[in-house]
């Protein structure tokens, strides 16, 4: 029985390691060549979405991004001579983009961890179910054998009358 336990333990460890290796990596922000801050933020938000962020988490980011679009429209509609207001709006855009980027990276990290944990739970559950199934099979077989033996021992031999 000790060898069975050892074998099961070894296989459990192997499955656990495989499950860990299969996990996605944490999403990190990366600068895209000479791309603008806006483009980088869009990329980061899309990465956040693909890392498994919930719709509610994404809604907050999307709302802020649409605020940036409104500010951009305002900036486009301002006359060039209105330099003060233009500078204000531009600064607000940059500030909001920086804030969105930071939040996107934070949400992505959380979402990645959550996804990894979900995967780990799923694969571990598979492993646990396999162990449980094997134990059930083992004791089931024992019971079945006992039942067969009991049945055989309780048999009556009747000889046909001549």
């Amino acid at each position, binding site marked *: *029985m*000790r*060898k*069975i336990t050892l*074998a*099961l333990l070894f*296989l459990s460890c192997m*499955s656990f390691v495989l499950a860990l290796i299969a996990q996605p990596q944490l999403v990190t922000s990366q600068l*895209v060549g000479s*791309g*603008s801050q806006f*483009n980088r933020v*869009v*990329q980061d*938000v*899309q990465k956040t*979405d*693909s890392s498994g962020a919930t*719709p509610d988490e*994404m*809604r907050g*980011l*999307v709302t802020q*991004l*649409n605020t940036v*679009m409104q500010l951009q429209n305002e900036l486009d509609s301002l006359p060039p001579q209105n330099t003060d207001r233009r500078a204000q709006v531009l600064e607000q855009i940059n500030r909001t983009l920086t804030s969105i980027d930071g939040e996107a990276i934070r949400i992505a990290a959380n979402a990645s961890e959550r996804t990894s944990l*979900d*995967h780990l739970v*799923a*694969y571990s*559950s*598979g*492993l646990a*179910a*396999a*162990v449980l*199934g*094997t134990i059930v*099979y*083992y004791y089931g*077989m024992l019971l079945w054998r006992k039942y067969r033996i009991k049945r055989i021992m309780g048999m009556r031999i009747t000889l046909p009358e001549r």
Partner: protein
Amino acid sequence: MKPRLKAVRQLLPVFLALLLLFEIGAFATTITPPSEKYLQLYVLGFGGAANNYYPNGSSSFRVGESISWHLGVVNDMGLVQLVAVRVKLGNQSIETPNDTLATPSPAPLITEFKSFVQDNETWDIPFEWQVTNYTTQSGGQIGTLTLMIDNMTYSIQNPPSCLTSSCSFRLIFELWTWNVELSDFQIGWWNGGQQRIAWLQLWFNLAPSGRK
């Protein structure tokens, strides 16, 4: 053979079979099956129905008559998208966007609407518009066409040639998306190495006794 070793030999295949079965189940629950990624663009008429696009049921209307439509974009791309709907003014002969080559229409751009749209969500754009004025050149060609869209006035100098006596214009709506690799808008979107586009057009005629 020792009884314990025999038990291991009996149980190992069972355990491995069960492990394989359950891990396949776990894998199936954790992966997202590949599905077609697409965007939808639609226009609805007055009251949000796919009819009643024009006042009095006729695409021929007068200057100053207000028309109420609803544009909609549905995002099924699996990711948040920055979407733009470009509104262009076409006449009878101008080229429409090319579905095969994925090229936009050369018609003049009137305006565009931009928004980020979450996955599995719909972006609804109220589109109130009217022709507020037009001028005619010698020979009956329309020289300047003034449109009001959502309380913004757009004046189109030398619109696609159209005679006031038999003038059929069309509003062309094109769907554009932000491409992070290009760091710019592109017409349509990419799916499975193929560029897809979505566009719509709605015709209108200026009634000959056009001006109020």
